[in-house]
């Protein structure tokens, strides 16, 4: 028979979000805390991110991914959190029954609290409906990153990277350092998708061309990629005629990340259509009592520091063991916002609001509106889709009356990369 385990907290996913959530639950007094990770090691995607740039905000120093992960792995070792690696969660019931398997068998956890820290996955060729042949040599950037940094193999000799997301930019530099010729990074939008610092450090410094308002129209090659047809597009992303052939044997896709919300759907947690993840409040509690979600399953963060910061908020809330109270405010984007989270505010005394701009703007203003009245705003000289706006909730003078809060981001259109 499957083994049955009573747990106070089950955290699903041992990446930065899950590690921080388990740690904070323990620190706020929870016991019988289980951290379930499907890979043989904790750390999640951090393990393959061997470049520096992690921890600048949280630790004030520049760490690599594995170094950043190590800090939390060490901290966890000092707690009584039970870590099960090589363990895959198959389903989570509405009754917070978590079914997992590993080489020992089937586990059924009966949890008082379930924390989803399952991260996100990369958008694929099929999702962007990239036409052409289906040869070997098409990788998502993160898959290629694993093969290069963990396995020590290279995806090919000449690469084109579609999408200017951060992993794509990082991989452009990584492949160049390994002797792979990176022909271009091709971005369908008129603005960069990733962080500006990655553009400078990964593309500019290595003279890798960035083709904005361009996309890959077709993949060529029967067995292995032989080239891609790259063409210019209009604002809606439709080809405008001008196109050329870029010979290459590898195509990396860095065309966005989507929260891995499939497990949450099975436990009927309400999902936000905009972010793809669950609705959460400022403590990252879901709309259903007993469920939390943190990290990139909520929505895709651009810095791991923010992931940790958000996940660390969960423990206090579990510790307080407060009953479920409906949120005071429900945030909804009205204009200029691609995604925002948390979408619910319960106290509004601390924590942060993360907002991803829809497009590049200058002289912008982020406003919070309640009953038609703007009760808070911040001025933003420049904002880009690649960088999230982080608003300190403690500084927001929340209105007395409960209700819906509309979030508006307005400014002058700004399409330059720099």
């Amino acid at each position, binding site marked *: 028979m499957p083994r049955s385990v009573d747990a106070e907290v089950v955290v699903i996913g041992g990446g930065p979000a899950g590690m921080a959530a388990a740690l904070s639950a323990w620190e706020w007094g929870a016991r019988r805390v289980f951290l379930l990770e499907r890979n043989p090691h904790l750390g999640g995607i951090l393990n393959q991110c061997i470049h520096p740039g992690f921890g600048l905000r949280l630790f004030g120093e520049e760490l690599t991914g594995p170094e950043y992960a190590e800090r939390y792995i060490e901290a966890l070792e000092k707690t009584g959190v039970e870590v099960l690696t090589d363990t895959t969660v198959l389903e989570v019931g509405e009754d917070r029954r978590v079914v997992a398997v590993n080489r020992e068998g089937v586990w059924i956890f009966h949890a008082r609290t379930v924390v989803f820290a399952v991260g996100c996955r990369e958008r694929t060729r*099929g999702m962007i409906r990239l*036409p*052409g042949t289906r*040869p070997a040599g098409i990788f998502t950037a993160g898959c290629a990153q694993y*093969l290069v940094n963990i396995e020590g193999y290279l995806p090919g000799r000449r690469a084109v990277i579609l999408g200017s997301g951060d992993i794509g930019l990082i991989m452009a530099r990584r492949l160049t350092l390994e002797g792979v010729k990176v022909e271009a990074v091709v971005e369908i939008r008129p603005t960069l998708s990733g962080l500006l610092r990655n553009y400078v450090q990964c593309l500019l410094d290595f003279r890798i061309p960035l083709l904005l308002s361009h996309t890959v129209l077709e993949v060529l090659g029967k*067995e292995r990629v032989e080239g891609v047809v790259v063409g210019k597009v209009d604002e809606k992303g439709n080809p405008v005629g001008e196109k050329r052939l870029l010979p290459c044997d590898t195509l990396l896709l860095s065309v966005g990340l989507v929260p891995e919300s499939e497990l949450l759907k099975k436990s009927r947690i309400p999902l936000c259509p905009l972010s793809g993840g669950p609705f959460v409040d400022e403590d990252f509690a879901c709309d259903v009592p007993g469920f939390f979600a943190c990290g990139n399953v909520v929505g895709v963060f651009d810095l791991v520091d923010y992931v940790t910061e958000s996940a660390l908020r969960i423990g206090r809330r579990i510790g307080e063991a407060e009953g479920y109270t409906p949120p005071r405010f429900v945030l909804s984007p009205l204009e200029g916002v691609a995604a925002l989270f948390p979408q619910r505010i319960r106290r509004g005394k601390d924590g942060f609001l993360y907002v991803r701009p829809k497009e590049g703007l200058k002289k912008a203003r982020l406003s919070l509106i309640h009953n038609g009245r703007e009760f808070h705003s911040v001025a933003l000289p420049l904002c880009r889709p690649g960088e999230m706006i982080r608003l300190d909730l403690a500084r927001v003078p929340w209105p007395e009356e409960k209700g819906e809060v509309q979030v508006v981001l307005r400014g002058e259109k700004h399409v330059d990369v720099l």
Partner: protein
Amino acid sequence: MKVYDVAVVGGGVVGCAIAWYLAHCSLDILLLEKQEDVCCGVSKANTGILHSRSYWTPGTLKGEVHLRSLSWFERAFRELGLSPLRCGALTLAFSREEARHLEVLKKRGAIAEAAILSPKEVLAIEPRVNPEIHAGYFDPETMVISPFALTIALAEGAALNGVEICCGKEVVAAEPSGRFLRIRCGDGTVYHARFLVNCAGASAVHLARNLGDSLPPLSFFRGQYFVLDRECQGFVRCVLYPVPTEKSKGILVAPTPEGNLLLGPNFEPTQGEDTATTRKGLLEVERGVQRLVPDVPLDRVITTFSGVRPTLPERDFLIAFSPSLPCVLHLAGIESPGLTACFGIAEYVGELLARRGLPLRERNDFRLRVPSRAFRECSLEERECLIREDPDWGKIVCRCEEVTLAEVKRALRANPPARTLDGLKRRVRVFAGRCQGSFCGMHLPRILENEGGIPVHGLRKSGPGSFYVLRRDEVAAYAEVR
């Protein structure tokens, strides 16, 4: 010198079905496939619909073998351990004229439970169908199967009963040598057989030419498809057909046994075996499908693909002995419904060979194929038992389709074995889920090296040129040349 009774050339669904059928008799059978695995050509990319009697074409060979095949289904599924999706089909008419065609289908099918339904009745079965329909024809006998699952099951069933399957063997010539045929392959290997059956699919005419025969030229028609996420399971329950035209059965919606939804195909002439997708073709499929079910969740596409249908000018199957070599049987132009008709074709081919002296004595030790378990289809108790037997059942390597290490290892050791990533995909569905291999693609190379003896740098997606990754020194050498 080993002399086979029959050499079947081509490891598609037709070749595998013939090999499996003949394996019921005491015969030495050889199956030669030019690609690295079976099910790599025309058979790998189609809807997988097992068309019912309503869709047979009277007065054609295609129709005759189609009907013959239907009576084989239940026996074949039992012997092969297959369970197709018995979902039925609705053919949707959008005008009075189209509605008249439904009568033709009903009459042709003569299926007791089949019925012509009013729009209201159609919507009661399939509420997502376009409410502007005029009428619908419900046919309970239509089924859907995975074309890979069927072809590979046939190959495994054949191998289990002694058929020798050799991949990577392209037949380039065959000449009489005494009472046998001497069959020469591109890599220099030579085989001897009494009969040769040309099931080379898209290359059938080419192979016939190599053997000295001139068959009518094949033209190729391409069909493009969308595959939707398994989360769309239940969006529709039946296969939804439009009213068929002279050219094709039209752009349809099909649930699959794996839980995905398949949309397509369009129908367009193409050059040879060009299986690229195009923006235009996919758009055509999108429009065609939206006509049947307006709110089809096209945002849940996980992949697109296209398949080709090799067709002869008369649009019928050709199954005939070679005029020059009496022991060579050619099959050409096996397009739709080739998958459905595969058992009927095999039986028909068996009869033709028997008439030329092949002794068909049914053996009494024919072995049934026991399908491998799929972890995702097991109950928790069954999973617990499997893991206790072999802990590899507890290691999930593909989380989208919940494929375990044990299943991967089994596919690597099957006969015929998976030797490529595509071969593995078609057997256990790694790479076939919503992440399309971006997760399992990280870990599989190492697993295949450790468990299958395939070195990471020798791993291929499919054919010889389709390397997956390179060693660092291979790239460094290239960088220097540059």
